[in-house]
């Protein structure tokens, strides 16, 4: 992904044409397959999670989703998740 991708795409549009949508994926807040939930984490762990997300370029949601999935598989190997 480059800073210039959208610019070069936009040059191909005709004058007066509407904007290109930069992202077609539905955001999780609008996706009916996701729910928003609240959990309490120790401050330090929350900070670590945030930093890990930033370093790996992923969302905190994604990291939590992966960890919880792994946890559940480990402790309830019979359940299909």
């Amino acid at each position, binding site marked *: 992904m480059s800073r*210039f991708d959208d*610019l070069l795409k*936009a040059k191909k549009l005709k004058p007066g044409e509407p904007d290109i949508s930069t992202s077609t994926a539905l955001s999780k807040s609008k996706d009916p397959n996701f729910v928003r939930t609240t959990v309490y984490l120790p401050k330090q762990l929350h900070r670590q999670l945030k930093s890990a997300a930033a370093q790996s370029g992923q969302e905190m949601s994604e990291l939590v989703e992966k960890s919880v999935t792994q946890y559940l598989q480990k402790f309830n190997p019979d359940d299909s998740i």
Partner: protein
Amino acid sequence: MIVTIASFKGGVGKTTTALHLAAYLQTKAPALLVDGDLNRSALDWAARGSLPFKVVDEKQGVRYARDYEHIVIDTPARPTPEDLTTLAEGCDLLILPSSPDAMALSAMLQMVEALYSLQSNYRILLTVIPPAPSKVGAESRATIEKAGLPIFKSDIRRLAVFQKAALAGVPVSAIKDPYTKAAWGCYTAVGKEILP
């Protein structure tokens, strides 16, 4: 037409080239200069005075690009590999300016190497060429031509009027100076090689 100016080294006349080619192309059809350099040198140049064409950054460019026939893109001195790939393959002509000194030439050759695996139409432009009796300009040209690399027939001379123009925020053609004609002539010659 999309023209991109790129070099791994700074101070080789990248912004000057972008700006004057935009000025040349503007004489043919509406031209837009996109300042993709995070130093925003071209935008600064435009802010100091007045340029005969529109200057925007790469984000604003998305909105304006469709309304202009020609787009000239000025890039940062160290483009990321992603930026280089996108621009090299997405533009009609990639111009690699280089002054005739060892460091600039070697940086330019590094870029030629980086472009080797990409689908790119590029051409080298020799800039900041010192006046006679110095022969470095001709010598550099001979070396590049011998290596079989694509190069513009015209060079850009090292003239103080370019600095004056940058300071005043206008293209050289708008400066009153004995060397105005020579300086602007350099870029119109290059412009004619791109779009006669």
